[in-house]
Structure formats: C-alpha cells, structure tokens
C-alpha cells in the first residue's frame, strides 16, 4: 500500500483527492499547511508527497526546497499542485527539484495516473 502525504489547504480538494487515492489503495495523510511538513516527511518517509504551491505560512516551494536539502530525501517523489499555471511557477518548482507538476483544475484520472507513475517509479 503506497503511503501518500497530501499537503493542501483547500479542504474540499484534499477530501476529493484523499477519497480517490484511498479507493485506489493508498494510505493518505492530509496536512493543511506547510509548517512542520519537512520534519514529518523525514520521520514518516511517505512514498509520495503531493504539495500545493500556495499554502498558508510556509509555501509549497519552501517545503520542496527543505525536502531536497536533505540528501536522504533527494529522490523522494514530490508532485506540485497549483492553481496558477504560469511558466514562472513551473520553472521555480522545477529548479527546486519537483518530480511532477499538475495544474488545477485536473481530472481525477490524471491525478490517479500521476500518482501511480510516481509511486511505481521508485
């Protein structure tokens, strides 16, 4: 069973993602802000982190940078979600070491396929 950490501040989006991934057999943990997420990833070692870019307090990019700064988590798959699909966000996420970038609104099938690919590629 793949363990997924979902960091998303929109409760209805996180509820929908949690539902579809759980139905696919994933064990989904949800956090609504970026504070403490890097430590949580370090201690829990999920198979995949799904990060919203615009989070209250600590942004998704800061969380991603914190994860990549630890050599032990350098290869951890991280998928970034954002409602802002502009090139600058994508470039910043790619520079910070994102594994995959998904722009809202996405389809459930896109989300499931991306999660499957990232988890299987480990």
């Amino acid at each position, binding site marked *: 069973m793949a363990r997924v950490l979902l960091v998303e501040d*929109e409760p*209805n*989006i996180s*509820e*929908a*993602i949690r*539902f*579809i991934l759980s*139905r696919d057999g994933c064990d989904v943990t949800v956090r609504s802000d970026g504070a403490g997420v890097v430590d949580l990833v370090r201690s829990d070692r999920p198979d995949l982190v799904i990060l919203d870019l*615009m989070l209250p307090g600590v942004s998704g990019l800061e969380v991603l940078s914190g994860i990549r700064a630890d050599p032990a988590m350098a290869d951890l798959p991280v998928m970034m979600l954002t*409602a*802002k699909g502009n090139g600058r966000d994508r470039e910043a996420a790619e520079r910070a070491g994102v594994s995959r970038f998904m722009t*809202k*609104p*996405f*389809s*459930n099938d896109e*989300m499931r396929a991306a999660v499957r690919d990232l988890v299987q590629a480990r």
Partner: protein
Amino acid sequence: MPNALTGTLIRERRLALGLRQADLAQAAGISASYLNLIEHNRRRTGAEVLGRLAQALGVESTSLSEGAGGALLDDLRAAVAAAQVASAELDRIDDFASRFPGWAAVLAATQQRAAHLERVVATLNDRLAHDPHLSASLHEVLSSVSSVRSTAAILAESEDIDPDWRARFHHNLHEDSERLAAGAEALVAYLDGSDNADLQGTIAPQDEVEAWLSRRGWQVTELESPGGRERLLGEVADLASAAARDLGAAFVAQAQAEAMALPLAALETALGVYGDDPAMVAQAVGVSVLTAMRRMALRPGSRAGLVICDASGTFLFRKPVDGFSLPRFGAACPLWPLFAALARPMTPIVQIVETAGRAPMLFRAMALCEARLPAGFAGSDLREAGMLLLPVDLSPGGATVTPVGSSCRICPRTACPARREPSIVSDAV
C-alpha cells in the same frame, strides 16, 4: 565642449536683449561676420570667446553650452540607440540638430513619447502579472473549479459510494459552487473596475476624475453657492496626474456653466412638471438635452447613471448606476441605445434595457446625440451622445425589452448576435 546649438542659443539671447550682431560682436571682441558664423552654428566657439559672449549677454557660459541643446542631443542619441539603426550618422548629430532643429525636436519628442509608452507598458504588464486582486480572484476561481471537477467526477463515476460520503460530497459541491459564483463575480467586478476606482499608478486620468466625483457622491451642489467653484478646484488640484487635474478643471468649468444655466431649483421645478424626461426639461429651461442629462445625473439623491461618448464611441463621462456595468477598458456593448443615437444626431432614442448576469436589472435608457460645429461650416462636426439610465422595477406597459451587456469580454450572453469576441464568463455566472 560647446554643442552645435550654442550658436542658436546665443542668437536667441541676443535677439531677446534687442542687440545687433555688431554690438554683441564688439562687446565680445570678435568680428560681426565671425559672430554670424557662430550664431548659425557654422563655427564652434572656444571657451574664451564663449565666456566673453556670455558676459556680454549677461548669462553664465554654461547656459549657452548646456541648455536644451544638450538634452536634445541626448534624446537624439537615445532614439538611435532604441532604433538600433547602425547606419545613423552619429558623428554628424551636431550638424543634423543645428541644420534641422525642427525635425530634430520632432524626433526627440517621438523618442521621449516612445520611452514614456514603454514605461507605461512595463508598468501595466507588471501590474497584470503581480496584481494581488487579480491573482487572488483567479486563485479562488481555479481552486473552486478544481474541487467541483474532482468531486463531481467522483459522484458521477462511483455507483457504490457510501451514503455518508455521497452526502458529504454533495455538501462540498454546493459549497464550492457558491464560492465559484462569488469568485467569478469578484473577477468580473475587477475586470469591470466598478470597485477599483482608487487604483493608483496606472489609473487613467478620466478614472481619477470619476473616482473623485464618486468620493463626493457625484454631488457638485457647491457650484450654486459663492466660493463653491474655488472649493472644487482646490480638490481637483489634489488629483494625482496633471492630465486628471486638467480634465477635472474642465469638468468644473462645464458643471458651473450648466448649474448657472439650469439651477437646482429650476431643475426640480421642471422635473416636477415634466417628469424624468431630459428633452422636456431642456426645452422648458432653454438648455441642451445633454446639459439636462448631466444636471439630472448630478442632482442630489439622483439614482440615474449617465454615459457620454464622442463620435468614436470613446467615453467622456461615466456616472455608474447600480446594476448597469460600465466597462473600464475596451469597447462597450454595441447594443446600447447610446450608439444607436450616435448614428442619428438629434433623434431621441428611448428603450427599456435589461442587463446580463445572475441578477438582470431593467433600466429606461434615454439617448440623444448632439452635434457641434466649432469651426463653422468650414470644419468638422463634433458629436457627443449621452445616455441617461434610470432604474425601473418592471417593464412598463409591456414595452419591448432590449437585452444588453457591458462589454463582450465580461458579458455572459453567448448567443448575442453583436458579439465581437468570446466571453470569459458564461451564462452560469
């Protein structure tokens, strides 16, 4: 080193002082013919001769060597750099500026204008990319759409979903649809600009003046009292841009003239007798219909909106009215009676119009175009059309209702025959 226009400056100063060439030449210890060559920029002046000429002219020598000429040459060099034309004869720039000062000034002014416009474009571009209101509204809409899409797909594709989950997702869908509607309305309001009157920096001069009038509640009743004009002009002097101050001063002048021609008491009397008909009011008092419209729109407690445009359809004045969105950018809805009036000067047009959107409203729109001949029969006629908008509760007497919008970009009437471009909102909004 003195630049080529030094001679022109010397000549201008000499003529201003009423000196003859011979007098100045003698005072500076040079021949009149040599001074003539200098004044026509055919000889460069050394520092010593320039100093003597400046002393005789009663100015600092730097004012002859560095004045407007230096700035002009800088602008010409900037024009060359901006155009990236390698073939420009930069080594003969002095010659060009002195032989064709008029053309040089035109080129320099064009360069300044281009530089100004580039700064404006950069500011607007930056604003669009980083505007927190626009960004927040878009984020809200996209987040809601994401949630609706995922949740709706779960409900549509899952037959065996637990009743508790189903109820939860239905609740979420309802919540998100409300958020989506609110976010879309905020976005439309932003694009329309109806609540952005206080934007600074890139705000148009006309927006500044209208924001000032909005802060005053669209009231200029002081104009009928002593000292009222000065008070209004004092407020206009505080507007941010020079262009807005000019527009504001012109507005005050026109408003005062119209307040004198149609004082409030006379307006109220006429309205009491003839009702909300600007043509009847105008006829009774002996003013133009557009004047009557402006006075009606600016009278205390007036619920009327007013739009005035020129022959190109460009808005000259906009007093908003709740429920009728007046576009801030771009062209308005071509179905407005205002534009029909523009094509038929002095033909009154009255229609009941219905706005688009989630809460359509009805207005009685009265429009008329007036033509002026400021240059008589020898010149062009200048047209101004006005449209007075009065909210009405119901379509009176089964009158035909004309559906109208704001501008195509934010109008949800997708099937409109007058549509110029796709809308960013849909009927659902």
